[in-house]
């Protein structure tokens, strides 16, 4: 018999670490690590719930309860099946998120989330980056004005930028 305090404490530690990672990390890939830990915490609780009898918490073996009629197990195995579903959804999520991160790195030359505070064309300080002619997400809009060519300080100061670096990385990604 496994005491239920163990899985509960494990799930809460993983969830706490995941929330800390989501909030404290600046590197976009490391933020995803925190999200994976949150999904893992949910998986622990799912698998623990699948070990419960069919009545759920009501059917638990309490220490004081008289040992008697053990209820039948859940034939649908909900906890384990849902864990497999959660793992699949997490895999799909991380594949898509990493594609977005790679696109961000190709366009902005950084994976630092603190340097990416713009919301695209809606932002007043928006400027197209160097080499924007080959950027897929930027539609053909009005030309870059002279005062916005410098960009904002945060995005410009992080990492080496320039046409040569962007073409090298773009070839690397594809």
């Amino acid at each position, binding site marked *: 018999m*496994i005491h*239920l305090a*163990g*899985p*509960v*404490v494990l799930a*809460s*530690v993983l969830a*706490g*670490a*995941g929330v*800390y990672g989501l*909030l*404290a*990390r*600046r*590197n976009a*890939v*490391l933020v995803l*690590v925190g999200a*994976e*830990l949150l999904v*893992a915490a949910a*998986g*622990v*609780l799912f*698998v*623990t719930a699948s*070990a*419960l009898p069919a009545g759920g*918490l009501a059917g*638990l*073996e*309490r*220490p004081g309860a008289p040992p008697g009629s053990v209820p039948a*197990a859940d034939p*649908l*195995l909900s906890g*384990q099946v849902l864990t*497999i*579903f959660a*793992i*699949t*959804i*997490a*895999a*799909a999520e991380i*594949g*898509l998120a990493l*594609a977005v*991160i*790679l*696109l961000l*790195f190709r366009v902005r030359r950084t*994976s*630092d989330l*603190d340097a990416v505070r713009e919301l695209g064309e809606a932002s007043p300080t928006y400027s197209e980056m160097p080499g924007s002619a080959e*950027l897929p997400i930027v539609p053909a809009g009005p030309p870059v004005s002279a005062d916005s060519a410098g960009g904002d300080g945060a995005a410009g100061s992080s990492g080496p930028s320039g046409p040569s670096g962007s073409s090298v*990385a773009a070839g690397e*990604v594809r």
Partner: protein
Amino acid sequence: MSVAEVAFAVFGLLSAVGGVLAVTSRHVVHAALWLVVSLGALAGVYLALGAEVVALVQLLVYVGAVVVLVLFALMLTRAPIGVRTDLDAGPRRRLLAAVAGVAVALLVGGTLTIAVGDSGVTPSLARGAARPLGQAIFGGWLLPFELLSVLLLAALVAALAVSRGSDR
């Protein structure tokens, strides 16, 4: 203590330590490798809880595929090698994040401990074997399972579309 209890304690401790180190390590690659430790030990936890197939899926999908994807993304975004201080936010935001993390851990752990902390479960390996799990998935869970394959296809197409761009 039975074998399952000892295995659960060892793997659970390893998983918790690996998870905490994965979000606090200052090496980028070390953080990804601690994620391997945490998620791999979690497969052992699943096995100790009687979920054999789920443990194998966890090993295959997480340790085999997801962590490799993360490492590839770190390489492609030119992650720095060595100790870096710019991976985390400033100390004030780190403190707030730690407060939020501890609050979530206390909330989840406290609530569930009050609810179920004084009881135990007896996991059976026979329930988590391939045959009952396959019968459950391709029986009652057939429609969600098929929907999940549509979701995977949508994620695949979307990842291709995002990474290739719209003009090619």
